[in-house]
């Protein structure tokens, strides 16, 4: 039990900090050396500059023959930015204050400690570079699963909430870069130990982005390590265009449907606040999310009766936890049958694509494809707007 207490404490902290860390919008940490908009200037570069438009957590700059990636928000409430200097393989690292991590690019081998990096690697054709993952149990990507099963991709631990990292295996693999997320609590994060033994670790803050496009823009961050950021940037521009096209479709609806999300658990119903990732997707899909006016980016711990009072007659119920059928919901709490959305069968969950061991594609490739999520949502709310589309991540609970 001793071991679990700190984990549970951190989870509590994470929930609390998620609720409170960013009350309105995400303030830019002061230690950002780059220009505020994250504009990259191509000095010794003939390629067009890349502008980071939606992501608030990183900037990309070009200096001489090297690139500087600055993670302005490595974890919630971080006070200091992290700097990564990406130098061409074999060249001398530029002088720096010693706080920056120097990484030779393009990297040839990549260790991913979060499944959200897979779709971005796949987009730039670099899934082959993946040599190790933290845990294969919750992976959805079929290629990664197969390779992990055959041993071609090593399983090394170290992911958030999972088993601790197998440092010995990592040292033996000697990867060019290890990418991970961090909580900011050194005792629980994997990066301090990895840095200590001299492994090249990079902290990715994609999960802190509150906008779907901001999260997807981290594909450029990952691509920069392969010198493929131009390709990733073009792909991202196309994604933005697709996203905005479907968003415009929904923007014209006359009567907005009402939506609520999640489930109660033992009397507490966590409801995403109005500026959270989930709420923004619902808003962009033209729905009236019942808590859209609640400021904040985290989740609110509401009582069941509060949610019941407000959502009883709502049109749609989305993302009801682990439920895969209406029967599952009743098994959790018989009172769910009192919701109108339950009675009319308008309950949808993003678990259409799951593996036997619990890998969910929504949390994996969904990060890179917010336009598909948005299409799913619009198809659910206003099917007449997208007659051709079939649900990809979502399914209607029967």
């Amino acid at each position, binding site marked *: 039990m001793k071991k679990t207490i700190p984990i549970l404490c951190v989870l509590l902290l994470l929930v609390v900090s998620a609720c409170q860390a960013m009350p309105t919008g995400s303030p830019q940490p002061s230690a950002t050396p780059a220009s505020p908009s994250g504009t990259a200037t191509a000095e010794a570069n003939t390629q067009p500059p890349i502008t980071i438009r939606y992501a608030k957590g990183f900037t990309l700059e070009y200096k001489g023959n090297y690139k500087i990636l600055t993670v302005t928000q490595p974890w919630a409430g971080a006070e200091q930015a992290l700097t990564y200097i990406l130098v061409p393989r074999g060249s001398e690292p530029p002088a720096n204050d010693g706080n920056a991590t120097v990484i030779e690019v393009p990297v040839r081998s990549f260790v991913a400690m979060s499944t959200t990096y897979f779709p971005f690697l796949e987009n730039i054709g670099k899934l082959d570079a993946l040599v190790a993952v933290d845990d294969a149990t919750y992976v959805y990507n079929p290629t990664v699963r197969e390779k992990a099963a055959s041993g071609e991709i090593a399983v090394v631990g170290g992911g958030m909430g999972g088993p601790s990292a197998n440092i010995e295996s990592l040292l033996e693999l000697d990867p060019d870069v290890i990418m991970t997320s961090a909580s900011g609590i050194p005792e629980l994060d994997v990066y301090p130990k990895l840095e200590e033994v001299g492994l090249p670790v990079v902290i990715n803050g994609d999960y802190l982005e509150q906008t779907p496009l901001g999260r997807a823009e981290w594909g450029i961050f990952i691509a920069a390590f392969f010198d493929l950021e131009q390709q990733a940037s073009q792909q991202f521009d196309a994604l933005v265009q697709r996203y905005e096209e479907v968003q415009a479709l929904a923007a014209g609806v006359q009567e907005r449907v009402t939506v609520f999300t999640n489930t109660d658990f033992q009397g507490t119903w966590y409801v995403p606040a109005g500026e959270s990732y989930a709420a923004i997707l619902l808003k962009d899909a033209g729905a009236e999310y019942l808590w859209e006016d609640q400021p904040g980016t985290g989740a609110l711990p509401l009582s069941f009766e509060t949610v*019941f009072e407000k959502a009883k007659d709502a049109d749609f119920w989305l993302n009801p936890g682990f439920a895969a059928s209406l029967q599952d919901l009743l098994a959790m709490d018989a009172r769910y049958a009192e919701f109108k959305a339950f009675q009319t069968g308008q309950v949808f969950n993003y678990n259409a694509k799951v593996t036997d061991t*619990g890998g969910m594609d929504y949390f994996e490739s969904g990060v890179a494809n917010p336009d598909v999520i948005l299409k799913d949502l619009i198809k659910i709310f206003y099917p007449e707007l997208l007659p051709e589309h079939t649900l990809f991540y979502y399914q209607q609970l029967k």
Partner: protein
Amino acid sequence: MPKNASTEVTPDNSRTASRSRSVGFGVFALLVLLLVLAFVVSLSLGSVSIPLREVVRILTGEPALKESWGTIVLDFRLTKSITAVLVGGALSLAGLQMQTMFRNPLADPFILGINSGASLGVALVVLSIGTAGTAFLAGLGALGDLSLALAASVGAGLVLALILLVGQRVKNPTTLLIMGLMFGYATSALTSLLIYFSRPERIQAYTIWSYGSFSGVTWNQLKVMAPVILVGLGVAVFLTKSLNALLLGEDYARSMGLNVKHARFFILLSASLLAGTVTAFCGPIGFIGVAVPHVCRNLLHTSDHKVLIPAVVLVGAIAALAADALAQLPGSQYVLPINVVTSLFGAPFVMWVLIRQRRGGTSFTV
């Protein structure tokens, strides 16, 4: 707790059962009144503000002003308040039994590892949903919203069976206590292992369960929970004399003609049924079980179980209702975990009761 309730009783006369019963009558009348009051308050307080008059109308079967209010009062608040009464009473009684049996003021209903067993059962369900383990648990879904409680009951039941088995073989109560601790460690280790290999969002679900809650209990679940608790309570009432005898030590009890082995079996059965059922439906609710017996002994100045058993049930129920009312943060739409409230507000209260008692000159005795 009002001061005048306890000033009527002095330590001298509390030892004689007949006197304490007559003195206790006024106290019990007061406690029952408080319980009714707390019950009404708990029904009228909540995140959604419903006027008391409407609450009464709904309870008497008249249609509510707003349809959703009817559902809220009958399906949410009434179940929650009844649950709180059952939980508070059950845990306090189980705590009293354990403290007496082990002659240990720190004993609580879960000292023998009952809640660790229940936690393991719940961890198996919560942490393995959507994974290969579900196949084994899929059948539980057919039982409606009893699956989590059933898993917890199976876990608690297994530990209970082990305790009863060991309890019959081990002579020394301290050995039994240590055995219980060991069961707890072993099952906690398995739970930790499950947590270690789980996803954050599942761990969060499990964590929320471990904070305890009265709100998750539905009518369907109450139909199972209430009878089991009443059985545990009934068994405890029959054990009053045995508990009084055990106060003076097992040897003395034996010399008074008590079948210690027999008594121990039924005390363990009753306490485990009470504590195990509560944990199964509401999660591991801490503090009440250890604190309420102390409060009652100190306020009533007695160790007589004829007085203490009804007293802890009443005070426990009141404490649970009060804790729940605070947890609902009346006027706000948020809720706090019940364990946070019981410990945060309960601990200073118990300290106050104990200090006040010391000043009176009588030291703590179990």
